[in-house]
């Protein structure tokens, strides 16, 4: 299973890529595999204020719904609108199909390295 080394991972199976103080958020290959085929991504609003550890939006597969959490408090600066028409991109390329970007006001907490995350999910 692909768990890229250059990303960090949350307890909720999101991956996080830091671009300065902007955090890019998606879900891991493990998460998409568990969910199955995604059929809908409820994107947050650009400009929305989010709080570390709280739900930002939800993604829905044929059989399940998963909530996407904020890795840090801040403001949503961008959302991946391409997922509106093609949510299945999260299945086919989970690390390219980012969901939203957040301008972080606080340092992200509770992130795991790729090595630790691999251990956690048994990959």
């Amino acid at each position, binding site marked *: 299973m692909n768990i890229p080394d250059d990303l960090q991972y949350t307890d909720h199976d999101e991956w996080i890529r830091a671009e300065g103080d902007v955090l890019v958020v998606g879900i891991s290959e493990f998460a998409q595999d568990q969910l*199955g*085929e995604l*059929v*809908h991504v*409820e994107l947050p609003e650009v400009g929305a204020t989010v709080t570390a550890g709280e739900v930002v939006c*939800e993604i*829905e597969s*044929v*059989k399940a*719904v998963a909530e996407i959490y904020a890795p840090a408090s801040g403001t949503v600066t961008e959302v991946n609108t391409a997922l509106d028409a093609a949510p*299945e991109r999260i299945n086919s390329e989970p690390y390219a199909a980012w969901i939203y970007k957040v301008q972080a006001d606080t340092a992200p907490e509770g992130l795991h390295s790729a090595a630790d995350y691999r251990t956690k999910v048994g990959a």
Partner: protein
Amino acid sequence: MVPARLGGSVALRRTPFHPHHVAAGARLVPYAGFEMPVTYSGLKDEHLATRAAAGLFDVSHMGEIRVRGPKAEDSLMWLLSNAIRRIAPGAAQYNAMCNRQGGVVDDVFVYRVAQEDFLVCVNAANRDKDFAWMVANDPHDSEIIDEGDDWAQIAIQGPAAVQITSELTSVDVAALERHRFQSGPFAGVTDCLIARTGYTGEDGFEVFLPAADAAPAWPAAIAAGAPHGLVPVGLGARDTLRLEVRNCLYGHELSDEISPLQAGLGWITKLRKPGGFLGSDAIAARKEEAAPVLVGLLMQGKRIAREGMMVRYDDRAVGRVTSGTLGPSVGRPIALAFVDPAHAAVGTELTVDVRGRDASARVVDGSFLDHASQEAT
């Protein structure tokens, strides 16, 4: 298919085709005591392949109960809701088995093998309950045998099913009418029953195979079908396929409490047959009640209404969702729900509480496939 006890828990049963599912990389899940494939290549792909070409389903978990003897027809006329005596040997019929309160013990397909010999195909989860119920309530002392371990079952469904199945058997399956069956060989396995029945809304066949000999039939069916576009299909797509054409699933749209009339099964509920049937008085009495009725809901947005979610009309709770999914061939979320009959008319605009937010839905009748969005077709 005999369960073994391991460390105090019951091990999952496996069908004769289990090694082929593992080899194909299927995702296996516990279902009704069996370890069953829920998906192989992906639910949406499997679903669309079944509608476009053909799907191969392992449904060996289904139960089979034999009823035979000189009074077998009378036994089933009493135990079941439809008119079994109207079908001849070689024909099959959909039935509800009801309890004294008019609820549904199970929905079953009955195959009349001979004048005094019937094979009743029952839901896997209800197998033990059904067998006990039939033995306890048969007024005629017919021979009732649980043959669930003796039969494997596969389904070939889809527009290419006739072509593929004809390559696997000497039975003239193209000439077989809907809800008729014949015994014969299938994929080298002898003494099978090949029925033109199914659950997906597509043309196709369900094949009963002696379990002990069945295993080679799976790779043979894959080999014959693959050139025609056949793919193996798991229980996930079996559910979305049946939901798109509004077939009921026991435990969702049917239960010990729900009457067949509520669930839209009036067409198999012969309340006026001579002598009635077990539960017919209660069903007739309940007919006058304003009990919730099953409706189809076409969701107007992209969010999926799921089982258990509340249905509202003007902020008032009027029902609950029993099944919901994205319909791959419909291109929109679809659901079935039990709704107060006052708000069940076709065209009624309802809302479903999807995790605290309202999602708009419209009551529609008939198959959801008639409501396919342009982009899905």
